[in-house]
């Protein structure tokens, strides 16, 4: 039988629409595949169909996943889709298929012997790890205006996973988290809901002047980090292992 590829946009909406279309074809799932973006090497004896993201269809899929596979699985899938992996769409699609086949779909993430489920599990885990890392490693700097500003460069698209944590932590403060790789800003006005904007709406260059106190506290913290280390136990390898260099470049104590 001919292999069919559904070419989807790299977004939650795009991939969920792809899953919707795959199911509406009512064909054997083994010969249907979801692919993200254009492939450079097209395969022989395979057909390619472009899928246009449709929020209505995507909502239906997300509702089914929530209902049949459970909220936890849904969060797992969302985290997996925040990764940069090219095969995440296919893995999520086949995981959904596997889950809907099971008697109790809520246990699908326990079925790690299935390679697609395992893939989703791994991607979700790596995204989650980065979220956990950045909850700690992110650094705010105070601007002249009193706004706290943080710049990050994460591997996965996680800024929306970080925002609720900091909104709960600093509810009375104005803060901005900027993902410089994807040009995304999380904006949190004091005592209000946070929202997401892209850099077409906000110019990153407006963030230049820091408050008078900012340098003082950066110096204090650097000194603290220096003093807290026990020189008899010095172990830079361990430090780098726990705190990879890619995070260090964004952290004041390593400047």
């Amino acid at each position, binding site marked *: 039988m001919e292999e069919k590829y559904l070419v989807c946009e790299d977004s939650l909406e795009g991939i969920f629409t792809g899953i919707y279309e795959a199911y509406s074809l009512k064909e054997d799932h083994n010969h249907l595949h979801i692919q993200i973006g254009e492939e450079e090497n097209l395969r022989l004896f395979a057909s390619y169909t472009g899928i246009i993201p449709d929020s209505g269809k995507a909502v239906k899929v997300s509702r089914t996943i929530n209902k049949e596979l459970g909220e936890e699985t849904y969060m797992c899938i969302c985290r997996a889709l925040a990764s940069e992996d090219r095969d995440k769409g296919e893995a999520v699609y086949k995981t959904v298929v596997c889950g809907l086949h099971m008697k109790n779909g809520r246990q699908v993430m326990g079925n790690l*012997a299935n390679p697609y489920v395992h893939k989703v599990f791994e991607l979700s885990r790596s995204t989650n790890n980065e979220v956990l890392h950045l909850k700690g490693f992110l650094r705010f700097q105070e601007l002249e205006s009193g706004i706290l500003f943080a710049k990050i460069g994460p591997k996965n698209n996680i800024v929306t996973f970080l925002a609720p944590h900091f909104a709960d932590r600093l509810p*009375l403060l104005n803060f901005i988290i900027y993902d410089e790789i994807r040009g995304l800003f999380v904006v949190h006005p004091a005592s209000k809901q946070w929202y997401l904007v892209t850099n077409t709406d906000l110019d990153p260059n407006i963030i230049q002047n820091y408050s008078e106190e900012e340098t003082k506290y950066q110096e204090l913290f650097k000194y603290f980090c220096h003093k807290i280390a026990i020189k008899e136990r010095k172990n830079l390898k361990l430090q780098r292992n726990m705190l990879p260099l890619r995070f260090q470049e964004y952290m004041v104590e390593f400047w």
Partner: protein
Amino acid sequence: MMHYKVMEDMSIMEKLGILTDAAKYDVACTSSGVDRRGDGKGIGNTAAGGICHSFSADGRCISLLKILFTNECIYDCKYCINRRSNDVVRTSFTPDEVCELTMSFYKRNYIEGLFLSSGILYNPDFTMELIYQTLYKLRREHRFQGYIHVKAIPGADPLLIQKAGFLADRMSVNLELPTAEGLSRLAPNKHRKNILAPMRQIQNGIKSNKNEIVLYKNAPRFVSAGQSTQLIVGATPENDYQLMTVAENLYEKFELKRVFYSAFVNVNEDKELPALPGGPPLLREHRLYQADWLLRFYGFKAGELLSEEKPNFNILLDPKADWALRHLELFPVEVNRADYQVLLRIPGIGVKSAQRIVTARRNGFLGFDDLKKLGVVLKRALYFITCNGKMMYNTKIEEDYITRNLLSVKEKLPFDKDGITYKQLSLFDDMSFSMQPDVTDTHKAVLGQL
């Protein structure tokens, strides 16, 4: 109230330097803590898994602003840098200075909260009162809802300790030395019963608070993240068996959340203290943390790991592998059928991978490839398990043979100074080839620091 001398001419930078330097040997972490969401009216929340904010040059995590309130002290403990007889610059913070530092560091996301310890200024009550005032200001005036770990000063008025307990997330009293004899030799002004009294008080406080919370949902929380303590390793001649027995007792009888082990660093060159030409006993500290994990999460007893005849841990093998080799009659274990508790005792299988095995085998038999995916370290586990009745290779179940093979897979230690074989060791044995350990796993594993 007595006045204490605040050195007006000293800058906050100098004070921070001195009082951080003096606090660095204390171990504390925010993990195994509590989840508490912010109420929207202040600043801060806490996460049960703990959050590491940075790592210092020794590879230990920085999650709290760890400082002494003062390094003045009336005691003369031989191992302590701040002992009375040492000639060091003395200084104290004011409660307001501690609050300002905590708030400014916290909002920049440098720290997860405050760890406040202290030398004894004038007397225990006076010191505890200052600590209480600081906590009160932080919680009430600054509306700080982040994590606070505070030391209960032995000998202080129980009422003061009680009041501080209602403001802190975790309290700790350091036992420091495992036996009364060691304590009287190195800390002549401290008495074991003075240390155990506040520990018992906090334990009872936590218990009765739990009952209150059942009755009144909004009752104030008392030391909600539990209490911890610290043992110094290698300053006195106690063996590992004594240390583990003390730790086990603390967990069982005092219901401690954590016991921390701190490799002794000789700062005072006192004649009563051992010279440590090889540096602090890091390997021993590491073995103790491994065994501590076995007590808390793997259902082991101290008496199973060590005994009077064999009072110290094996240098070459981790305590779990060492135990398994002495109990080969229990192996091999069939992975597809064994109890969770039995799975936990197999070298190469950790808490996470054992849980995953139990879930995954509901969907069919697991083979060796599947185990690898689940995070089992087959290089270590293969001598102890069967899948569907078959062992992975044709191996002998014989102590010498397995020991030799386990030793050829070099153990990964966090402090291997040559760095060539360096890799983070996870106590959950979860560093498989296809699956990375969770951040929290790795963090918890290293020196039990976090």
